[in-house]
Each structure stands twice: as C-alpha cells, then as structure tokens.
C-alpha cells in the first residue's frame, strides 16, 4: 500500500516525498529510489525534520501506536492506513493520542473514494430506493500468503477487521449505526490457508445487513459486490460483471506465496487511491476536514471487534459506542 500511495502522492503538484521508512532498509530503498526520497530504517529522522509536513503511515496494524504518538508529538499531519486499531485497547490508546489533535488526520478508508460506492450511497441518501430493507456487501480475495502478517489475527485482526472494515465503514457511512451483530467465521489456521466470515447485522434503523469477507477465493482474484433493497427499488453492483477490462493470461504459471492482497485494477484518472491521497493533501492545504474522520474509522473498528467477539462466543452482540477521549482522563 505504501508504494501505491507514494506513487499517487508524487503525482500531485507541489508535493515531494522526503523519506521512505521500512524496518528493512533494502525494501525502503526500492521505493525511495522511485520516489526520489531518502531511505531510512529509523523513524526519528522523519519526525525530527521540520520540512516534513505530513506522514503516511502504512505499517502493519500491530506496529502503529508508537508511530502515531510520535507523529502527534512532532505535529505532523497524518494519513494512516486502515484499520486504525487492532483491538479495543489499541482503539482507546489511539483515541487518547488523537483527541484534540488539531492537525489533519485522515484514515485510508478508500472505499469512500470508489466511484461505484459513492454513486450507491448518493442513490440511497437521495431516497430513490425508498426505505432500505436489506444491505448485502461482499469482499472476496485470495489468501494473502503463507507467512504473511495479515494471516496472523494478533497482528492484523484477521479477516473481519482487516478486510471487512472497508464494508463496515461503508455501512456506517451510508446507513447509520449498527444495533446488533451476529458473526460466524472459519479460520482454518495455516494448514487450511483460508479465512471466511459472514456477518448478520441489524441496523439501528431496522434495516438488515449481510457482510461476506473471504480470504478463501482464488489467489490473485478480487471481487466486491453490493446489493441494496428498498421499498422503491433495488441497487446492485458487481465488480466482476462491471469490468471494462478483462485480461486473462493463458500460459500456466506457478503461484508463489506472497504477502500481498489483490487490489482492484483501476486507471489513473479514476484511481480511488489517488483520489483519497489528493483529498488528504487538499485538506492540509486548505484547512478542511477530511472525508474520513478518525473517530469514524475507529467506530468501524469497534463494529469489527463486536463481530469477532460474536463469532468467538457464538452469540449476538449489541453495539454500544464506548470510546474514551471526549472528556479529560487522568492517567
């Protein structure tokens, strides 16, 4: 993700990348070279450098808290990848770190910048399909790879957090709060090389939402679908059917383990990753509020945590918004 966002950033006039950080210097060097930046394997130079206005945090979820703290202490604008928090404890910590922070903070809930999802949301909000009855969201990709950090739920949160946070965020953004969550999931562990989850959600409004998240699909594949039904009509979107470009290599090639998750292919003009990072830059330059507020991103994480709890215990879980940070807390 760092590479993708870095490249998108470098195309914006007046923006230059100063540093690329990775724990492995060699990895940082590859991207730094492409972006004409300095490769570092320590974060301190970045935070100490007054020329750095903003940091783009694309580190694995489980490593981010200290980085965010350092960014706040050095007063940098922050763009942080999703999901914002790995668990409730981290969510509380981050909430306290970011509370009252006046610099721009934006979270990479990139689905809000996909033309299809923007259209669907506008149609719903316009009332064109009437009272919403059912919402079906699906995100299916292949297993991220044998030794990938994604597949360790203690590092990534597993599929309900890392993958479904996109759809959970879209759900909250478009349809309001959830009331009750019932989730089922199967992670076979490394032996089975898959993860799969189904969520059955009752919204505060009364509408019902069904979410499907899959790391059980063919490696390298990507499919996202939406179906929204209402009293005045029905909306459907299926990335597999809507493709304007379909290329299939017919030679046989082996698939190697990789720590990448397949992303949708997009052209530069319509690239939602370009759109989101441009939005971030625009917010910094023009002192605007970002499209994705960090509190909203934490809320989406909270719902994912509920789903994980539900799946673990085999019971429905009620939603209660419980994040601290709105009032002063003595430590």
């Amino acid at each position, binding site marked *: 993700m760092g590479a993708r966002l870095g490249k998108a950033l470098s195309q914006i006039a007046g923006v230059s990348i100063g540093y690329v950080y990775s724990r492995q210097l060699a990895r940082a060097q590859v991207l730094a070279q492409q972006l004409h930046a300095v490769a570092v394997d320590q974060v301190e130079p970045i935070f100490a450098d007054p020329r750095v206005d903003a940091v783009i945090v694309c580190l694995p979820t489980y490593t981010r808290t200290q980085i965010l703290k350092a960014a706040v202490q050095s007063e940098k604008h922050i763009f942080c990848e999703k999901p914002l928090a790995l668990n409730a404890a981290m969510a509380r910590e981050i909430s306290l770190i970011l509370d009252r922070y006046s610099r721009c903070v934006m979270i990479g809930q990139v689905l809000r910048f996909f033309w299809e999802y923007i259209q669907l949301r506008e149609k719903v909000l316009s009332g064109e399909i*009437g009272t*919403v009855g059912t919402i079906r969201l699906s995100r299916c990709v292949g297993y991220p790879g044998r030794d990938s950090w994604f597949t360790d739920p203690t590092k990534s949160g597993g599929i309900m957090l890392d993958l479904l946070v996109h759809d959970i965020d879209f759900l909250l953004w478009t349809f309001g709060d959830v009331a009750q969550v019932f989730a089922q999931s199967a992670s076979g562990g490394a032996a089975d090389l898959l993860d799969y989850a189904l969520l*059955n959600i009752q919204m505060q409004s009364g509408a*019902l939402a*069904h979410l*499907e998240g899959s790391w059980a699909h063919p490696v390298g594949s990507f499919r996202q679908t939406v179906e929204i*039904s*209402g009293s005045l009509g029905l909306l459907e979107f299926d990335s597999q059917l809507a493709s304007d470009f379909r290329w299939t290599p017919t030679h046989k090639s082996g698939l190697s383990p990789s720590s990448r998750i397949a992303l949708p292919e997009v052209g530069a003009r319509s690239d939602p990753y370009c759109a989101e990072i441009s939005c971030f830059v625009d917010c910094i330059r023009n002192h605007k509020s970002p499209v994705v507020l960090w509190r909203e991103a934490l809320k989406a994480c909270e719902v994912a945590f509920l789903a994980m709890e539900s799946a673990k215990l085999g*019971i*429905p879980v009620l939603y209660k918004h419980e994040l601290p940070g709105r009032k002063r807390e003595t430590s």
Partner: protein
Amino acid sequence: MTDLGIISFEHVHAPHYLECLARMDAVHIKAVAEADSERLRAHTPQLAGVAIYEDYREMLQKEALDGVIVCAANARHKEIVIDCARSKKAILCEKPIATRTADAREMLAICQAQESLLGICFPVRFSEALQRAKRLIHEKSLGKIVAAKTTNHGTMPGGWFGDRQLAGGGAIMDHTVHVVDVLRWLFEAEFTRVFAHAATRIYDLPVEDCGLLSLEMSNEVFVTLDTSWSRPNRSFPIWGDVSLSIIGTEGILELDLFPWTINHYSEEAGKHTAISNDGDLNRVMLENFVGAIRKETTLSADGLDGLRALEVVEAAYESISTRSVVAL
C-alpha cells in the same frame, strides 16, 4: 392410469402443476376442489372435463383418487392433509408443511398410521446443478466444506402470504424451507443452531418482509440465508432467486439455480424480463410423486423433510423474539 385431484388454488404454483400434470403420461386430473371460483376463472380451458368441487371433503368422498396435491394456504395444510390421509389418498403438500411443528408432527403421525404417502413440494432438489454439486462435494473436490452463503430472494407474493393467520409468518415462513431442504439433502446433515434478524421495511405488512438467518449444521458448516421479499414487484426482471455459494478448503462452488439465461428487453412491456429454465423442476417433482404412487420409485422429499425444514423456521422466529441463538 393415475387419478389425481388438486385441493385449492390458493398457492401460486397450482396452475402450473395443473399444466404439468395435463402433459404427463397415464395421469388424469379427475377433480379440483376450490371454494373461490375467481381463482379458477383464468384456467377454465385447462379445467375442461375436470370435476370442480367447492368443498374438498365432498371431493374426497365422491372421487376415486390415487393421490391429491394440496395447494392451500399454509395454515390450512394440517386439516386438509389429515382428511386426505384418513381417506387413504397419497398426498403431495405445498411448502411449508404447516405453520407450526406441532401440527406437522400430527400430520406425520396420522399419515404413517393410515399408511398414506406424504410428499412435500420441494422442487429445487431436482435441479441438475444440485445433483452435480452433491457429487462434487462427496468426491471431496471442494475439500472440507467451511460455509455456505445462500439466498432465496423473492417478490412479495401478495394475498394471504401477508396474512399471519393464513401464512404463519412472512418472508421467513415463505423462503426458509427451500434452501434448508436443499442443504440437508446436499450435505446429508441436520441443522443444529439458528439465529435470525427480521424486519418489515419494504412493504406495509403485519409480517416480516426481510429475514436474515445465521445457521449451523451438524457437519460444522455455518450458513447464512437471506429470505427477503426484496425483489421489486414491478421493475425487477425476475421473481427472485435460489443461490448457494459453498466455500470449501479446496474450492468454491457457486450455484445460481435460476440464472438470467435469456434477457428479454421489451418495448411493449417497457421492461426487462429475465427468463430462467425453471418449469422443469415442478414437472420432475410431480413425476416423482406419481412414480411413488405407482411404487416405481421412492418419494424424494417426504413429510419428515417438511418437518425438519419447518423446525428451522420456528427456531428462527424464536430467535427473533428472544434475541438469542436457538439450539435444535
């Protein structure tokens, strides 16, 4: 010659059953019992030569029938099926078998005591795609089955379907049993746990029009089932769907049992109609019933299958009112 009667045209499929039966070899529709002549008016040509009764009991008394197909509203199934069993007729009953499992158990007991065949209208079992799926699963081509994401969406059928007394419930009562029966047949496993959310959002009804079930089976597979009447009545190209996405460790099987095979964009109708080859399933189901009467074959879906499917429905309603998971 196998002589059959149809009791009630309340259910939407009755006219199609009539049509299928008329084309079957050595099958004769001798009589139809329907109190409301309005329901029969559109089918007058197909009913030529068929004895029409207002009271099905009179029909059972007067006609020598080998079997009866019960297409009454759900709540009426119990009384009718019991009367048919007592007159020693083979019975094919529309789904769901009844509106309460207690009624279904009574029906099963009496049919057994009277040695009356009791079949339930679960035509989806006869889908060829489903036969292939069962083979694939049993060959372990999908590996270990982990989950199934399923739907049986529909348009709101109207009439008594929205009447709690006659239907026993809304979308969940209407659209749970087909998929539950299919999954039981496919996996040869039973349902063990049921959780459900329901809502009335799309129509102004005293029953639910949206239903989302989360289920577990005895083979450790978890399942979701969307039973909602969420297909718009006027603008949607087709009545609904039956779809199953089966996730295994070695593969994924996607079944769309009523695909949009032919898409017809009509200027005159001003809409798009999607046509699926679904008529065949009813015919095959009826042939199975007739074959069972003739003792040439066994009934595919019987009263017990009907009961098991209804148990899931009842558990779903209990789950909704208690906001908890219900164990079967």
